[in-house]
């Protein structure tokens, strides 16, 4: 495993500095941290702070921008940011209207963001959080709060960002964001491990011809390990999991994300959508919008995930709002 990194210095710091240097028009650092802030953020609204461990680029920093998050609090590789930097980040963007934190539902993130909220409280910053738990393979439905957040993060961020921009109160932003979060499910599939930068170690092991349905971004176990299968069979299985989980039925309107985990190519991801599209069409699901992206990755991990966001009129309004960041730009294409 050859990684293009330096011999000395902090990996995340250097990477963040590089990102900031390239996109310096848009972002600046929260001083002395690896957290970033959108320079031209709309003022006088609820602030949206996202974050989590590094190593999943473009998540999280890539989703800071117009109509998206105001800032991202970034941790070390695969480790949540600490309470201090989260708090500093929140302070950097707070407009007195409150700060909403969105992050994936992981032990480390929960502990650190909770503590940060306590610290914000001491500074009289009103806060709230929405934890994303879209990965329906990570725990049964009755233990939904044990589920992990994966690619669904991005749709939650999109909706929340638009709701903040619309000038909603913190309570209203939370309501809309939770509504979106509750209508989002993802199922993933791993074909090969990523590696931990700086350690030169694979994040998990998988046999030559093995794959695992539902495996988490960090190699957390999924729902079934099996031999490699053709794309159509993989998608069949994954779609039926999502369909049952979400009770999808004819007439439902959705946004769909096929997300690559790192080294799986767009050629393959397009093929996944080719198969997925057949299911969606034959089941009468109305696809409002679809994306095929490498948005939520785990280094050079192989595999992909499918995310479905079920829309209603309210969510559609926020979904449709334009947004723009280096990795997620949505405008009325005319």
């Amino acid at each position, binding site marked *: 495993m050859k990684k293009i990194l330096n011999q000395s210095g902090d990996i995340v710091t250097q990477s963040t500095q590089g990102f900031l240097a390239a996109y310096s028009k848009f972002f600046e650092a929260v001083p002395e941290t690896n957290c970033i802030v959108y320079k031209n953020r709309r003022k006088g609204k609820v602030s949206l702070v996202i974050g989590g*461990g590094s190593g999943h680029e473009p998540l999280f920093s890539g989703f800071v921008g117009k109509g998206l998050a105001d800032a991202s609090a970034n*941790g*070390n*590789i*695969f*480790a*949540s*940011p*600490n*309470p*201090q*930097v989260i708090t500093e980040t929140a302070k950097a963007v707070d407009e007195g209207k409150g700060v909403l934190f969105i992050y994936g539902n*992981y*032990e*480390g993130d929960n*502990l*650190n963001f*909770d*503590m940060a909220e306590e610290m914000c409280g001491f500074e009289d910053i009103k806060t709230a959080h929405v934890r994303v738990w879209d990965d329906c393979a*990570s*725990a049964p439905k009755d233990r939904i709060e*044990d589920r*992990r957040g994966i690619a669904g993060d991005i749709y939650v961020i999109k909706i929340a960002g638009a709701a903040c921009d619309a000038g909603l109160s913190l309570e209203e932003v939370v309501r809309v964001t939770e509504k979106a979060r509750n209508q989002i499910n993802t199922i993933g599939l791993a074909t090969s491990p990523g590696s*931990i930068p*700086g*350690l030169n*170690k694979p*994040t998990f092991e998988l046999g030559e011809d093995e794959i695992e349905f539902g495996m*988490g971004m*960090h*190699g*957390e*176990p999924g729902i079934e390990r099996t031999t490699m299968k053709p794309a159509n069979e993989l998608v069949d299985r994954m779609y039926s999991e999502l369909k049952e989980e979400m009770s999808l039925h004819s007439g439902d309107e959705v946004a769909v994300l096929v997300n690559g985990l790192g080294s799986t190519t767009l050629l393959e991801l397009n093929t996944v959508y080719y198969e997925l599209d057949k299911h969606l069409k034959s089941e009468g699901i109305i696809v409002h919008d679809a994306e095929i992206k490498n948005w939520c990755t785990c280094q050079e991990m192989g595999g992909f995930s499918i995310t479905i966001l079920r829309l209603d009129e309210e969510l559609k309004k926020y979904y449709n709002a334009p947004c723009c960041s280096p990795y997620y730009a949505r405008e009325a294409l005319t």
Partner: protein
Amino acid sequence: MKSINVETCKQMVIAACDAIIESKEYLTEVDSKIGDGDHGIGMSGGMEKAKTALMSRDDFATINDVFKTTGMQMLNSMGGASGVIFGSMFLGGIKDLEPITELDGELFSKMMSAAVKAIKLRGKAEIGDKTMVDALEPAAVALEKTDKEDLTFCMGEAAKAAGEGVEATKTMVAKFGRAKSLMERSIGFQDAGATSVKIIFEAMHSYLQAQE
């Protein structure tokens, strides 16, 4: 030793830092079996910061300050579950403690019991959930029960209990942290955080022994 002063306490904590830093690869190995394999990175990173902060100052007036500095450095640098949890291990112990300049067995026992309480409050994990609590709580209990005449002896008892706790985690199903999604599959592997607790107590014990 019956008790130690601020400077010795600082050196003892630095010894714990060194032990964790040296165990970086080992802890990562342990975490990668059922977690995400970053525990060694996180812990050693936090302990490096703590060590640097401890060594950069000669004016620690109290034991509290030594522990606070250590805990704050960990809390505010590590991130991850262990940043908060291990930060709380050091911070929780001194939360309601009056300023002290000598640490004896009695006080250390009080601190560790308070630390356990703080961690459980924050992390919600109970004994048997396969976390560092399974090493720390037995250590605190052992400290309570033991004869507190000699700090070195106390530390040895705590280290022993923590070590047994680590062994016990092998039979447990994880209920917290990344390992919980493994369910039954987590059985047979020891918990990474518990391993760190054991290493910390053992290092502090060795340090004290060497001072005799």
